[in-house]
């Protein structure tokens, strides 16, 4: 284990490539460090390799070249089950278990870890409260929830066993702007309290600027830049500039065309 310290590197990509076959390379020579307690946002358009990057961290995929280190150890060295239990994962499609109540969805990893029932119930209540859901929701099934509520349950489930790391794949995608903004605000206050190491995927710059400590810009399987939110808006990289311009236009529609 690494010693404590604000700038510890918790997740590290070292020259990581991921190839499907000899013709299709999805990630090219990725180098990236994620520090303890930060929220690193991976920003990029659809198909740029964001989800693939996340799956390399919890070993749902293994690199075809290079290595991914988690807490100083290569993912191939880790026991995959222990590795995944240390990393909460909010998948893009949410993927709640349709045959389980909210309570069982959230409590599944604690159950697998052998927590006693009482402690589990306590934990589920605490987590639902944390993500802003009524305790009564615990008895519902996923199909009885709204999209936003499902996404909250997905986050609660990822947090269940108290993992120090969190991978969030467009956790607030497919929501109306108001609910989305609400969840983003809640995420910020959550992160202020929990201080997890988070890799957060989005294709929405506004969201990235809101939650990120740093933003990694992915394009066609390459990391083309790594910025703090302030740097990002002034970045010389043409792609970053495009994002920034689109963002400013969206913020101030009247300025359209003056740039």
């Amino acid at each position, binding site marked *: 284990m690494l010693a404590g310290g604000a700038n510890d590197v918790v997740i590290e990509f070292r020259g990581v490539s991921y190839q499907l076959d000899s013709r299709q390379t999805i990630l090219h020579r990725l180098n990236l460090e994620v520090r303890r307690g930060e929220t690193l946002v991976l920003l990029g358009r659809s198909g740029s390799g964001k989800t693939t990057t996340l*799956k390399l961290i*919890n070993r*749902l995929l293994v690199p075809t070249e290079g290595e991914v280190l988690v807490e100083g150890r290569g993912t191939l060295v880790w026991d*995959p*089950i*222990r*590795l*995944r*239990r240390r990393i*909460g*994962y909010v*998948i*893009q*499609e*949410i*993927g*709640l*278990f*349709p*045959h389980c109540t909210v309570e069982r969805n959230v409590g*599944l*990893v604690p159950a*697998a870890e052998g927590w006693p029932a009482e402690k589990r119930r306590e934990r589920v209540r605490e987590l639902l409260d944390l993500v802003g859901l009524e305790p009564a929701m615990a008895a519902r*099934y996923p*199909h009885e929830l709204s999209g936003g509520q499902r996404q909250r349950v997905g986050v609660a*489930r*990822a947090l269940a066993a108290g993992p120090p790391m969190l*991978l969030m794949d467009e956790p607030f995608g497919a929501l109306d702007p108001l609910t989305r903004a609400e969840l983003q605000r809640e995420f910020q206050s959550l992160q202020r309290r929990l201080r997890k190491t988070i890799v957060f995927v989005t294709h929405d710059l506004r969201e990235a600027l809101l939650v990120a400590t740093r933003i990694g810009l992915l394009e066609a399987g390459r990391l083309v830049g790594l910025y703090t939110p302030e740097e990002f808006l002034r970045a010389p990289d043409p792609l970053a500039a495009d994002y920034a311009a689109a963002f400013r236009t969206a913020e101030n529609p009247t300025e359209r065309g003056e740039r």
Partner: protein
Amino acid sequence: MSLLEFFLRNREGVLELTLEHLWLVGVSILLAVAIGLPLGILLTRWPRARRPVLGGANIMQTIPSLALFAFLLPLPWLGERADRIAITALTLYALLPIIRNTYAGITGVDPAVVEAGRGMGLTDRQLLFKVELPLALGVIIAGIRVAAVTSVGVATIAAAIGAGGLGEYIFRGLAMVSNQLILAGAIPAALLALLADGTLGLIERRLRPAQ
């Protein structure tokens, strides 16, 4: 003598043959589930076995039942008793729908749900028993249902080799050109099929996960 009279007069005989029929079908289906369910699960873990296993089960189904009985007859132990032959044949027939539906049910589980389970660190076993099987259960039961209903019909032919069951009346009726005797076998068999269909259908509906 009307059919109703026949049933009243021979209720013990009818009951006995019905129970015998039920026993042949029940034992075969239990065996087929015991073999087919693990096999179906295996196919999802080991896709290379899919073609040979499903192909084999498919061929089984194309063999006419009388021929299958005849093939089994010379086998040691199995061939010694008619009910063993009948149960073996019925089991072989029931395998295909059970294997196929187990495989289809598990591979048909929403990949996002499986990925979420794997991503949160469920072991293969936990994934199978807590996620995949519960979600596939409705489809699996549907396969058992098809197998059971078919089995009730095929089992009537078991009487041809002396394994008993409601086929006895049917074959006797054929020999004596008595519609009444044929119906005395066919009607309870049809009712059995309906019963199996209804019961398993009910279970199937209760087990299908809500969408």
